[in-house]
């Protein structure tokens, strides 16, 4: 870093001299490859970064030491020297039996945590026999209609030893209730089990768009989960505040960061308003970011995320516990960066993205498979993406020291710019009255849509190159093997549902559903009611219907 003995003005002088003497004569003779260089997000990038770009940079204030505020360099003092990141491949397809088999396979291959993908009817709180479920059952993930499916899904898995992440949002509380009831039935201690619920409804309205209820009752379900977990399941990560989907919808890296952290602020505010003490729930908040192609931009994003969140928690919410200040995150490589053309190249893209996440200090990582622009991945493709992480972890030696890129003038400048851009967005969204209000007037949605369109135009003008798509094309593509899920899954699932409805105690089901509906209309915590309902084998669709009748459903504003 800049030596204290060299005044800042001197660095400017030196840089200007270099430009005049060495750079400009060359550029005049032979032009650079492009008129302007930009990040994948369209952010301008200079030819060179020097101490001149870091005028007020202060090691102590801007970086600090790992495990200490502002956590720019990482939240743990030893990072990967102590414990490697968790290799957590997201998977789920077909029936609970199919996915259970895949889980056992992944664990046998050295995966260290589970991550469940649910199918669309489950994400939408519909049973497999709902008319809208036709064609969708088991396609994008595993179908879970009731506790029966959850029991099968985790058959033979030690839930005290394996942590489970569940990608579920609108009906998160209900799926979590199924997980907890199953864990207890199998003799596991709720105080010892751990995992993560995605449970982030705001980014659904913003980007992924799998919603059921309007924002305000949805926020109540989330704070009910926070409260219940604090008391009953203390090791559970109650929410994974997600930028992943925002980025996949076409946002820039900065928008991903800013909207995600602003969503985080909204959840903290909601929980405080619901009467919770910030230091009771904040240590269980976790984040989820995309790992895209622009290597340095991504690393800057993760480092800025930790720094901004620290200040948010400390200054805006006056959290006292250091654990409330630390931003822990999961990363997933960018699905939207994968190409259908020359799909083997996706292995390379994924490797670069995964390396960025690791150098950015992620706590866990999912690497995408090369075939995912066609379908859910085959076992073979998943094995390669798993091995990608294992090669990074075991062979590349990048985890030997903490935050190895710190001190790069470019990276530190990018980290500062990310941070500044983030505060600017916070100011705008605060002025709109918060994130729910901003969503209601479609502010983040429009920002993302504009960024997505601009990127597409840049690709079509060849200002941004995608290998195999707008350059380096091949005439004949070699087809690859893809996973095929047939309609048998839906038939099996519907049969199982009918059998369940015939064999369970329907009077008890009805009683618990009625009690739930009453509680939903009151301010009571709904978790105990969900637990009662799922324990009686009420289905996800039945439970969500009760909630729909009280909360109504969300209608997206037109924009």
């Amino acid at each position: 870093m800049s030596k204290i003995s060299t005044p800042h003005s001197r660095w400017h002088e030196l840089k200007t001299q270099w430009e005049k003497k060495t750079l400009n004569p060359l550029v005049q003779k032979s032009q650079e490859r492009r008129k302007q260089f930009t990040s994948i997000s369209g952010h301008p990038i200079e030819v060179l970064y020097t101490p001149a770009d870091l005028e007020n940079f202060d090691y102590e204030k801007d970086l600090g030491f790992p495990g200490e505020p502002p956590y720019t360099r990482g939240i743990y003092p030893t990072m990967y020297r102590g414990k490697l990141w968790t290799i957590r491949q997201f998977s789920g397809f077909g029936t609970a039996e199919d996915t259970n088999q895949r889980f056992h396979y992944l664990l046998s291959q050295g995966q260290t945590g589970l991550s469940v993908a649910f199918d669309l009817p489950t994400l939408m709180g519909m049973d497999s026999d709902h008319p809208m479920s036709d064609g969708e059952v088991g396609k994008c993930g595993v179908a879970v209609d009731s506790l029966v499916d959850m029991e099968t899904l985790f058959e033979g898995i030690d839930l005290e030893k394996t942590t489970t992440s569940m990608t579920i949002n609108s009906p998160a509380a209900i799926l979590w209730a199924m997980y907890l009831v199953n864990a207890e039935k199998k003799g596991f201690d709720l105080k010892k089990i751990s995992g993560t619920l995605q449970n982030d409804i705001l980014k659904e309205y913003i980007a992924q768009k799998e919603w059921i209820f309007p924002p305000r009752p949805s926020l109540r379900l989330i704070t009910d989960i926070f409260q219940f977990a604090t008391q009953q399941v203390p090791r559970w990560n109650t929410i994974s505040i997600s930028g992943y989907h925002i980025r996949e919808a076409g946002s820039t890296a900065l928008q991903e960061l800013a909207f995600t952290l602003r969503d985080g602020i909204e959840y903290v505010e909601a929980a405080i308003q619901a009467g919770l003490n910030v230091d009771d729930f904040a240590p269980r908040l976790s984040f989820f970011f995309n790992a895209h192609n622009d290597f340095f931009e991504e690393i800057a994003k993760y480092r800025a995320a930790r720094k901004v969140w620290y200040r948010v928690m400390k200054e805006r919410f006056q959290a006292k516990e250091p654990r409330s200040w630390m931003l822990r995150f999961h990363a997933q490589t960018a699905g939207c960066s994968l190409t259908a053309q020359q799909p083997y190249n996706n292995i390379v893209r994924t490797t670069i993205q995964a390396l960025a996440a690791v150098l950015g200090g992620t706590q866990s990582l999912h690497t995408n498979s090369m075939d995912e622009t066609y379908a859910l991945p085959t076992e073979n493709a998943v094995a390669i993406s798993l091995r990608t992480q294992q090669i990074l972890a075991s062979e590349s030696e990048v985890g030997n020291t903490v935050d190895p890129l710190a001190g790069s003038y470019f990276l530190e400048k990018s980290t500062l710019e990310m941070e500044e851009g983030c505060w600017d967005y916070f100011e705008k969204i605060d002025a709109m009255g918060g994130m729910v209000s901003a969503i209601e007037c479609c502010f983040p949605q429009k920002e993302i849509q504009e960024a997505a369109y601009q990127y597409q135009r840049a690709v079509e003008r060849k200002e941004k190159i995608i290998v195999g798509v707008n350059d380096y094309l091949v005439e004949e593509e070699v087809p690859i093997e893809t996973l095929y899920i047939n309609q048998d899954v839906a038939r099996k699932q519907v049969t199982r549902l009918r059998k369940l409805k015939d064999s369970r105690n329907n009077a008890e089901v009805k009683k618990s559903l009625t009690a739930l509906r009453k509680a939903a209309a009151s301010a009571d915590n709904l978790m105990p009611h969900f637990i009662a309902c799922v324990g009686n084998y009420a289905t996800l669709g039945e439970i969500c219907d009760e909630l729909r009748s009280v909360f109504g459903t969300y209608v997206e504003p037109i924009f």
Partner: protein
Amino acid sequence: MPDKRIRVLLAKPGLDGHDRGAKIIARALRDAGMEVIYTGLRQTPEQIVNAAVQEDVDCIGLSILSGAHNVIIPRIMELLKQKQFDDVLVIAGGIIPDQDIPALQQIGVSEIFPPGTSTGAIIEYIKNHLKERNL
């Protein structure tokens, strides 16, 4: 019909909410001078076909990423036939594996555009095919 603007219905059938592609296409087609009616998310085949008939569109673009295309698209094609609206140009895009494409084309889907297709290619395709049909 040189003066008539091409009318396109863009639809997101099924349960998936991934509308990045559909929205980019909507804007690109509008920029190319077409009239675009976007249905919004989670439309049933019945809703889509009714909208197409009501709006009397020249082209229906279906965006589907959930894997439900083999169930949902045949139903849409069947309903179009029932309503005698099957001379409309139907195109689709999203996550559709190669092996499913021939069957979809056989039931009348004119073209399936894979990920990575440029908006320019889709615009050209619509213009050329509607021209041929109107000859």
